[in-house]
């Protein structure tokens, strides 16, 4: 009781503050150093979009080299100088592109751009809160991300180029400048940028957890939360517990690079200078453990928000309750726990103790169970629905399709006896791009199409949305499906040129095909970006504050909510988020009290 009273008092104060605040907002406090979660979410999304274009462009560049290894593109030399001498991308630059593509897409786009955007936008709105628990820390979270972005991007402009040891940056390659140009100043930028990024991620994550646990509106018990919020919650927990480990890994690597410590170094001889390094007793494998202790939860940090949003969007547009709500929450929880216990499946071939490997096989394949539950529950949600194919819904269906395709290949790689051969081949590239990269990207697109009306009070152009979806869906499969075959032929990852290898003969045509499709898909993403910015200002205006006929709280705010979200009292919640097509009604918002004659309710 007293808790609720406090909440109300707080809400009332928040409301007054909001009115007092509104009139004094300057450009800087409203658009730059904003503490409004909705503006911060847009800042994350903007920065994420810029990074996605850059990261995508990097992949286009290195796909040019892979698809057309014998051709030269003089324009590249004009643009990139020594990195594309004679119009041909140089190996050092190729590896910098590959490294930065991975880093940027994994961390800056699919972590900050995805969970930063939607956790910020939806947690207060769907929990019925005026803002985050700490709007100030929330603002800092964005600006640390911004600083990380600046440092990362500047690494392309240092003389020796950006980091080029792969997105995992394994030492000793990443520790010693003599091993690669990218391991010089570029690597320091990478490490510093990652450290800043981790701070950003922790500030954000702690805020998300605090808000979800403490600031839900009256009546909104945890089991009445939409699955989006559950997903963001587990995502934040994963991040808060695992990112610090990566931070320690990065700091120790900085020590090894500059302070002469030997955490990761032992028995290293530099051929170039013909000198043996003094370091002894370190372990290169230690870094891999520290890296993957974040690295594996990281893929779920990327995937869980997409799962949550897909669940919400599929249910809303099928006009059906999500099937097996508690099982969906339970499987998110199970994935969250297991995510911490499987990291060494990235290290089956590092000389890991086979017995330890066996334990990781068991735990890894266990993840297939909650994943299967989720897939079957999504399918059952579609079954006997009355489905509306909004662009968001199409992307959510695409997400499920990709999650199945990519998830199943995980069963191969998680089984060490198969990984013994498949490790670090294109099979792995195909697997994680489909299940984590493209699938999560689809989740993000679904979220953008679905909640754009909430962000700007306007719709995205649907025709462009449909074109965007279909080209991306078909393109994604055309790019990544055949890569499985390259992997099964043994093609290793991160090869700049395969012409020297006899066992890889016969894939030139395929590489060209993949590169061409990648180019088309990239061009289509530009169309989406254009749609986004055009619709922000000129899109069709929203007339109905609840355009998708959805139950959740964010649609009870005005079309363009101010800072504080609800002009009056925060609405009270009486039911779960999924009363669709119940008792002859298409949807029943969460704010509606349970009727007297209503059939069994959640």
């Amino acid at each position, binding site marked *: 009781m007293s808790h609720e009273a406090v909440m109300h008092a707080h809400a009332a104060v928040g409301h007054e503050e909001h009115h007092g605040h509104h009139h004094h907002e300057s450009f800087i406090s409203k658009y730059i150093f904003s503490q409004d979660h909705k503006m911060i979410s847009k800042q994350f999304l903007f920065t994420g979009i810029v990074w996605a274009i850059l990261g995508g462009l990097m992949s286009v560049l290195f796909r040019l080299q892979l698809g057309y290894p014998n051709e030269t593109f003089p324009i590249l030399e004009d643009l990139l100088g020594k990195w594309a001498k004679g119009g041909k991308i140089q190996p050092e630059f190729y*590896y910098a592109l590959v490294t930065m593509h991975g880093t940027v897409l994994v961390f800056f786009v699919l972590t900050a751009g995805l969970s930063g955007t939607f956790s910020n936008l939806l947690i207060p709105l769907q929990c019925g809160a005026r803002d985050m628990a700490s709007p100030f820390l929330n603002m800092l979270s964005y600006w640390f991300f911004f600083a990380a972005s600046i440092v990362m991007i500047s690494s392309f402009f240092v003389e020796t180029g950006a980091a080029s*040891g792969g997105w995992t940056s394994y*030492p000793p*390659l990443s520790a010693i400048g003599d*091993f690669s140009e990218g391991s010089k100043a570029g690597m320091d930028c990478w490490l510093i940028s990652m450290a800043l990024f981790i701070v950003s991620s922790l500030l954000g994550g702690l805020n998300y957890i605090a808000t979800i646990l403490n600031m839900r509106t009256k009546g909104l018990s945890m089991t009445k939360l939409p699955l989006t919020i559950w997903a963001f919650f587990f995502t934040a927990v994963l991040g808060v517990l695992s990112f610090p480990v990566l931070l320690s890994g990065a700091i120790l690597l900085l020590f090894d690079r500059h302070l002469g410590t030997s955490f990761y170094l*032992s028995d*290293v*001889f530099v*051929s170039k200078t*013909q000198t*043996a390094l003094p370091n*002894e007793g370190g372990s*290169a*494998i230690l870094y891999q453990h520290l890296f993957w202790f974040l690295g594996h939860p990281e893929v779920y940090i990327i995937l869980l928000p997409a799962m949550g949003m897909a669940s919400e969007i599929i249910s809303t547009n099928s006009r059906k309750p999500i099937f097996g*709500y508690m099982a969906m929450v339970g499987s998110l929880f199970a994935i969250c726990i297991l995510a911490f216990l499987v990291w060494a499946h990235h290290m089956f*071939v*590092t*000389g890991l103790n*086979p017995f330890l*490997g*066996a334990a990781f*096989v068991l735990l890894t394949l266990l993840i*297939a*169970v909650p994943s*299967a*539950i989720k897939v079957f529950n999504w*399918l*059952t949600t579609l079954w006997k*629905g*009355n*489905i509306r*194919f909004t662009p968001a819904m*199409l992307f959510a*269906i695409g997400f*499920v*399709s990709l999650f*199945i*395709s990519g998830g199943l290949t995980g*069963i191969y790689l998680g*089984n060490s*006896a198969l990984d*013994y*051969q498949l*490790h670090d081949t294109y099979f792995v590239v195909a697997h994680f791009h489909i299940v984590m990269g493209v699938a999560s990207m689809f989740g993000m697109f679904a979220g953008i199409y679905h909640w754009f009306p909430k962000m700007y009070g306007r719709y995205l152009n*649907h*025709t*462009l949305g449909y*074109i965007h979806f279909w080209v991306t869906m078909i393109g994604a499969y*055309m790019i990544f*499906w055949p890569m499985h075959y390259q992997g099964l*032929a*043994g093609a*290793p990852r991160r090869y700049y040129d395969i012409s020297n*290898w006899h066992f890889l003969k016969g894939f030139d045509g395929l590489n060209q095909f993949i590169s061409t499709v990648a180019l088309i898909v990239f*061009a289509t993403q530009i*169309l989406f970006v*254009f749609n986004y910015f055009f619709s922000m200002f000129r899109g069709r205006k929203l007339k109905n504050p609840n355009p998708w006929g959805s139950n959740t709280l964010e649609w009870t705010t005005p079309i363009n909510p101010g800072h504080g979200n609800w002009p009056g009292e925060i609405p009270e919640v009486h039911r779960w988020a999924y009363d*669709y*097509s*119940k008792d002859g009604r298409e949807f029943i918002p969460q704010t509606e009290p349970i009727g007297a004659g209503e059939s069994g309710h959640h």
Partner: protein
Amino acid sequence: MSGFFVLATILLIYLVIFQIAKASEYVGVLKGEEVMRKQSNRINGFLLISFLVLGLVGVWYTNHLYAGKTLFAHESASVEGENFDSMFMWTLVITGVVFFITQILLFWFAFRYQEKEGQKAVHFAHSNKLELIWTAVPAIAMTVLVVIGLRNWFHVTKEAPADSVVVEITGKQFNWIYRYPGKDKVLGKTYFKNISDKNNNPLGQIWEDKANNDDIIESSEMHIPVGIPCKLVINSRDVVHDVGLNHFRMKMDAVPGIPTSLWFTPKFTTKQMREKMNDPEFNYEISCDQMCGPGHFSMRGVIVVDEPTEYKIWLATRKPNYWTAFPEKDPTKQAPATADTTAKKTADVKVVTENKTAKK
């Protein structure tokens, strides 16, 4: 100039698509949102089911084009790799069934239950029975795969048989160095601070350790005999590399300071493989599978699998690295007269003929 035209064409395409999209939105406003939504719903429903059908055709076609280029077109070249092939096929069957069922259901449900006049969605929120089924079935399937997997895993990772041929392979940017233990069958001790390419000591052999005196170092190819288990002791001189043996279906990282190993029994000599694959240029290639620097893609090694007698002859003609490092210790070079060298040569030929007779 052509670049300009490409750019202009792309811009034009963007413009056309954008105009169409804009126009369709106006039409939507005129016709009414409801009508427009239903129309696009029908189109997308149709596209979803078409995507399923064409996608399945695509799956077949990709397989048709590329299955023959994968490793599975030819059987494993090692005894231990046979398990990999059969296990892969079992996993393919299980995941394949799930793949087809779930993808077909996904797109079929989407198509079948698209919004229609008079159709009402069913309020169906959960069913313990169904959820129990699809928790239990994947759990059982995973148990089967884990059991098969671990059995194979413990098989490939167990200690190499005592009679294995032992070869040390050391990665460096960007090639491989092979070392044979010589007659004493013991690899001499090494220390990385002794490494010196100039002094012909690329692995840092400790010369005080007499076991090093007969160790042979090769940098062009690794030779191993067919039908005899072969254990590779894997090292790195600088960064993390990976010994990728595609035809033998295995790989293992090379980590500086932490030796690793793998073992396998080759089933076919290089010559037999060439005939088998009808490819006179075939070689067992060692690919570096762990990002190791700008030359990663060129870090190629070759394994030549010989008949055991050929292997013995090859090994017998190699000189210990000790002699290369200390030419004055080389007995063949110490010999003052030419007559002696000739004698040595004849002796070598004798060894060859003896081996051949032994085989017969």
